């Protein structure tokens, strides 16, 4: 489409003059179009069309009008109707034209019929004969157009007349005829299902038609049939799966492709059918897993239409009987959507998420930050869809925050959400806010629903709610009331009228006084006045004097309705018998919507009257002038004539996507700017820093200090980000498994304790401990080297006997970890997240293995069986004192970094109440652990799963272990250490195609030249392998002098690296959805290469 050159308007006058080419039109139509383009006001339009209609009238009744002219007349009539003017006198001529015209005229006649007449129009009966005749015509084009019109408008009663003919066409040699016949039968099925019951077998034949078009049109019928009774069509699942497979496999002719995607709309249709068939049916679902998987995989092109298919596919995966593997893939797809910088995709992602969270609310957790961002999005549609999403995940814990967000959104508060209201006062208070902020923008239903909610409850249960409402409204009315919206005043007066008597302590005179006061305000509308008067009527008698005064003052009102009500009020208050009789049910219905006028209004509207607009709206519109012909800029009002209009009215047809698809197919990533010199500036800077995986560096205090000086300032998380995370935590509370986990870190749950009988134990030096604690705290600030440093007292390895805590893998670890996984997004963390910080994973064992002291160096042997096989770092001693020694190692799990701490008792006695407290800077709480006692010469193992949300070069960990050697005598032993981003990076296994797709969707990039390792054969390969070893990267592909590498941060953010050999340097280009991640990864790459 790129070669399209827009026509310029300079060609316009010529177009009018010449009557050649495609725009071969007659004088009158040309004149009409010209006049229409020149219109400047509604008034002019009316005059023009009036003139036109009378001209048409004259022409059609003239016997000399040819069919050719009639065709042009029909187009003119179409224009008149399109602009909203009745041209019903031409309808009969449309039918005549279809009857008598040549092929083109006939088609226009049919077209006019389908545009002008709706089903059930009596004139359609006159068309039946024409249709019958054309269906039997030898001219295929005539058959074609007859079938088209039959599928559009055809009188229901006459279906039997054409049905046999249409059925015959199902076996017509021409595909277009068969296709149209199927569509006509579909229409018949919709309007008269009984008539086509006998031909279901023929639908089946159409489904297996050799022409893909015929097959595709039969899918409309099947979608409908399956929607109605899915069970009857399960046997067709195999066929639909096969069809989809063939489409995916590119078996259709190329002209079915749209932007090189094979028959996308057909795919969507098939996916819809499959999801209906597989819903709640495991065996049927199993048939389609493979093709759905393929469909998810095939959609590799970065074009809107593939995303449209993906969306449908994700929906199908979540509708049918679940399969874990597919769900995971689909969930990842949703990630691509919501994280996309393209707003349309983001929208569809939110929509998919809204659908999916109904099946699995936890998915919302993965995207909570995106959801928060979308909540504040400037685009109304995005915001609205996000609220819809939040509405679906509303629960008792997050309702207050979610409703608050909805309030911000003003006019959209489904009262239904409020059924989760935690208590009455909050509910009433929130509704007060809704009414006073949202006010008259609320939908009519909302106040009504609210009142119904109040009214329909059981008296005993809801009296408290009502009482609270009365109290709260009295308080509101005592304040300033002039700014309150009318609907709120109405709600208040209704509630006070109905329920004021519930509140014994309230003086009725006071209520009457407050309500009367409202009547005096000028801002109160007359509708509200009626509500108020009704309320006053309902307030029990006894205050006749006040009421009479009021009635007196209103009896001279100019408003007749008020005058009448005042009279009624007076009568009722004077005649208590009548009053009792009238108000027996205590219900006084006021038709506030004036629905008795609806008939009148709709009549007036149908006759062309403008819909009523309240005065303020009318005022706004004055300046905007929104009438159809004049609501653009005022300039265009005068310059709208066809000759001098310079604005481009031509269509430019270009697909904004073609550029993208070109980019992705080749992945030419040129243009890596060589901003920095070949030497770079970082390698020598980092030269002395300890290598990532050399724990020995940990014991060199000197190098620590150097490292501390070298370290880059750690970026502080912005307060805005913190706000968002706080919001996220309060919105998504209760979605994980442990719904009691407080996301704000205010965990009320006490740390789990291991209970055991206390045993006497000898004391150890507490003075030494306190000294060390101060020592260690000062040290913790220095411990910023890249390696995993824990403490600096490695002098002893004191354990003489080690006993490990038995690990019961299935019951505790498995549970504990899967729980952790579920709630991982739940937890609040600024830098890293600590999962399962409690010791639930490790339980004190009853069986204690005795190990000889010599084994102490190989503490890893103590790891629980399921962790033993994981890649791990060396064991480092953290800290020790005469009684206890702590060491740790890091285990690289796929979903988290496990920090394992070995606590060894070096004494011959039992140590009690051993509690480990692990804290990470910027991390609010790490649950402390207490184990009742640690047997003599034994070692216990506990581990923590850590996640890093926001990358930092290094994260400091500090912790304390407290224990009792004697009852009541607690010792504490501090320790500290550092973790680097590199520990949190895992390979991201993607294919080259996926890489290309992902690359385009990522926004943050960083480019830099790095050192190229030239010591071995292939420099690029050597360098990439070195990086891979150091940083756990995944080398996706190496093509010539370019290599692509992918990794991800544990919490999910991917980072893609594109490397190109550029002379003696390696030009690296990193991209990630996370703004800071590329920087950190680059930093670690530099270090790894510098140390190689």
């Amino acid at each position, binding site marked *: *489409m790129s070669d399209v050159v*827009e*026509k310029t308007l300079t060609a316009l006058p010529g*177009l009018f003059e010449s009557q050649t080419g495609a*725009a071969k039109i007659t004088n009158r139509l040309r004149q009409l*179009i010209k006049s229409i383009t020149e*219109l400047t006001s509604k008034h002019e339009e009316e005059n023009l069309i009036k003139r036109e209609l009378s001209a048409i009238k004259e022409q059609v009744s003239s016997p000399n009008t040819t069919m050719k002219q009639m*065709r042009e007349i029909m*187009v003119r009539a*179409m224009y008149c*109707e*399109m602009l*909203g*003017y*009745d041209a019903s006198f031409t309808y009969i001529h449309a039918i005549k034209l279809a009857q008598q015209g*040549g092929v*083109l005229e006939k*088609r226009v006649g049919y*077209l006019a019929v389908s545009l002008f007449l*709706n089903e059930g129009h009596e004139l359609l009966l006159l068309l039946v004969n024409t249709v019958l005749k054309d269906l039997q015509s030898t001219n*295929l*084009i005539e058959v074609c157009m007859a079938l*088209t019109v039959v*599928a*559009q408008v055809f009188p229901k009663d006459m279906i039997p007349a054409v049905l046999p003919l249409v059925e015959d066409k199902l076996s017509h040699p021409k595909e277009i005829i068969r*296709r149209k016949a199927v569509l006509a039968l579909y229409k018949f099925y*919709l309007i008269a299902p009984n008539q086509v019951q006998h031909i279901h077998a023929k639908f089946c034949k159409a489904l297996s038609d050799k022409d893909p078009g015929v097959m595709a*049109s039969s899918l*409309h019928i099947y979608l409908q049939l399956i929607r109605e009774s899915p069970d009857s069509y399960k046997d067709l699942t195999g066929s639909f799966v096969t069809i989809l497979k063939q489409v995916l496999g590119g078996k259709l002719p190329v*002209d*079915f492709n*749209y932007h090189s995607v094979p*028959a*996308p*709309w057909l795919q969507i249709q098939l996916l819809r059918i499959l999801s209906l068939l597989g819903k709640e049916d495991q065996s049927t679902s199993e048939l389609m897993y493979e093709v759905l998987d393929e469909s998810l995989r095939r959609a590799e092109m970065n074009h809107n*239409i593939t995303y*449209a298919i993906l*969306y*449908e596919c994700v929906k199908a995966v979540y509708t049918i009987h679940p399969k874990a593997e597919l769900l995971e893939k689909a969930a990842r797809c949703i990630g691509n959507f919501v994280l996309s910088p393209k707003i*349309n995709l983001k*929208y*569809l992602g939110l929509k998919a998420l809204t659908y999916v969270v109904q099946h699995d609310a936890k998915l919302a957790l993965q995207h909570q930050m995106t959801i928060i961002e979308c909540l504040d999005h*400037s*685009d*109304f*549609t995005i915001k609205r869809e996000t609220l819809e999403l939040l509405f679906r995940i509303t629960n008792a814990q997050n309702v207050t925050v979610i409703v608050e967000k909805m309030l911000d959104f003003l006019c959209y508060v489904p009262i239904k959400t409020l059924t989760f209201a935690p208590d009455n006062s909050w509910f009433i208070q929130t509704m007060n806010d809704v009414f006073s902020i949202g006010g008259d923008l609320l939908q009519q239903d909302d106040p009504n629903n609210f009142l119904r909610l109040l009214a329909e409850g059981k008296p005993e249960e809801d009296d408290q709610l009502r009482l609270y409402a009365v109290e709260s409204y009295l308080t509101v009315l005592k304040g300033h009331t002039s700014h309150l919206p009318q609907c709120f005043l109405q709600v208040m007066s209704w509630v006070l009228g109905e329920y004021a008597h519930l509140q014994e302590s309230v003086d009725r005179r006071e209520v009457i006084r407050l309500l009367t006061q409202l009547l005096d305000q000028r801002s109160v509308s007359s509708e509200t006045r009626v509500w108020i008067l009704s309320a006053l009527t309902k307030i029990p008698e006894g205050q006749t004097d006040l009421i009479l005064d009021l009635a007196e003052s209103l009896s001279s009102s100019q408003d007749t309705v008020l005058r009448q009500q005042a009279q009624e009020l007076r009568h009722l208050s004077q005649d208590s018998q009548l009053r009792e009789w009238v108000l027996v049910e205590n219900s006084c219905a006021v038709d506030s919507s004036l629905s008795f006028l609806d008939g009148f209004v709709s009549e007036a*509207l*149908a006759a062309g009257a*403008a819909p009523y607009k309240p005065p303020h709206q009318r005022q706004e519109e004055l300046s905007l002038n929104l009438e*159809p*012909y004049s*609501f*653009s800029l005022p300039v*265009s009002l005068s310059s*709208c004539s066809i000759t001098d209009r310079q*604005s481009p*009215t*031509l*269509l430019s*047809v270009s697909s904004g996507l073609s550029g993208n698809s070109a980019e992705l197919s080749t992945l030419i990533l040129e243009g890596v700017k060589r901003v920095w010199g070949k030497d770079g500036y970082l390698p020598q800077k980092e030269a002395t820093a300890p290598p990532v995986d050399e724990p020995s560096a940990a014991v060199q205090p000197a190098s620590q200090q150097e490292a501390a000086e070298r370290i880059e300032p750690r970026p502080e998380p912005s307060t805005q980000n913190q706000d968002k995370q706080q919001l996220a935590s309060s919105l998504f509370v209760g979605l994980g498994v442990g719904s009691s986990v407080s996301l704000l870190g205010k965990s009320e749950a006490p740390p789990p304790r291991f209970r055991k009988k206390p045993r006497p134990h000898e004391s150890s030096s507490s003075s030494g401990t306190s000294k060390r604690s101060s020592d260690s705290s000062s040290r913790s600030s220095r411990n910023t080297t890249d390696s995993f440093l824990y403490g600096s007292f490695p002098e002893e390895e004191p354990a003489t006997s080690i006993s490990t805590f038995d690990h019961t893998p299935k019951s505790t670890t498995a549970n504990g970890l899967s729980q952790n996984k579920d709630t991982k997004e739940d937890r609040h963390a600024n830098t890293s997240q600590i999962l399962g910080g409690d010791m639930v994973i490790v339980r004190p064992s009853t069986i204690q293995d005795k190990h000889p002291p010599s084994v102490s160096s190989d503490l890893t042997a103590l790891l629980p069986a399921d962790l033993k096989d994981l890649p791990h770092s060396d064991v480092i001693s953290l800290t020790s004192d005469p009684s206890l020694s702590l060491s740790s190692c890091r285990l690289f799990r796929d979903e988290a970094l496990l920090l394992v701490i070995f606590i060894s008792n070096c004494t011959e006695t039992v140590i009690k109440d051993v509690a480990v407290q692990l804290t990470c800077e910027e991390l609010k709480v790490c649950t402390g652990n207490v184990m009742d006692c640690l047997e003599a010469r034994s070692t216990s193992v506990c581990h923590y799963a850590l996640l890093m949300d926001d990358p930092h070069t290094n994260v400091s960990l500090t912790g304390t272990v407290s224990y009792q050697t004697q009852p009541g005598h607690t010792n504490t032993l501090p320790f500290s250490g550092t973790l680097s981003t590199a520990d949190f990076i895992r390979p991201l296994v993607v294919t080259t195609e996926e890489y290309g797709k992902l690359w385009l969707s990522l926004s943050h990039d960083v480019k830099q030249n790095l050192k190229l390792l030239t010591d071995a054969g292939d420099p690029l390969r050597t360098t990439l392998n070195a990086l891979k070893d150091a940083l756990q990267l995944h080398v996706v592909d190496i093509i010539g002098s370019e290599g692509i590498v992918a990794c991800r941060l544990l919490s999910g953010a991917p980072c893609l690296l594109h490397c190109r050999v550029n002379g003696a340097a390696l030009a690296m280009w990193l991209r990630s959805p996370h703004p800071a991640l590329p920087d950190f990864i680059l930093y670690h790459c530099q270090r790894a290469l510098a140390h190689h």
Partner: protein
Amino acid sequence: MIKFLLMVNKQGQTRLSRYYEQVELGKRASLEADVVRGCLARRKEECSFVEFKDYKLVYRQYAALFIVVGITENENELSIYELVHNFVEVLDKYFSRVSELDIMFSLDKVHIILDEMILNGHIVETNKTRILAPLLALDKMAES
């Protein structure tokens, strides 16, 4: 399901309207005005979908002309968005570089093309060759 398809220019003038669900003649003009107002109010960086009454609008702008499709909630917005483009590509193929004036002068033909693509609110054909086949045959017969 598709409820209607409109072609409206920036000045709010309707160039083509096709309703797949009956809307009274008298109500169409105000509905169309509301629709265009809804689309014109949107900024470029906002998404191409707007909520409108109880359905969704999918719109796409080509020069000064908006093509707006009203759809039900269960429809796939993005697929409609691309359907619009497919429609324009077909028009472009037929008129070779289509312009607003082409559409005005050949209102009937644009309708015939549209009828091949959308029937009763369902997408029935998206293959460009097949969409144009009946119309091209008509043209041929009319010429001879």
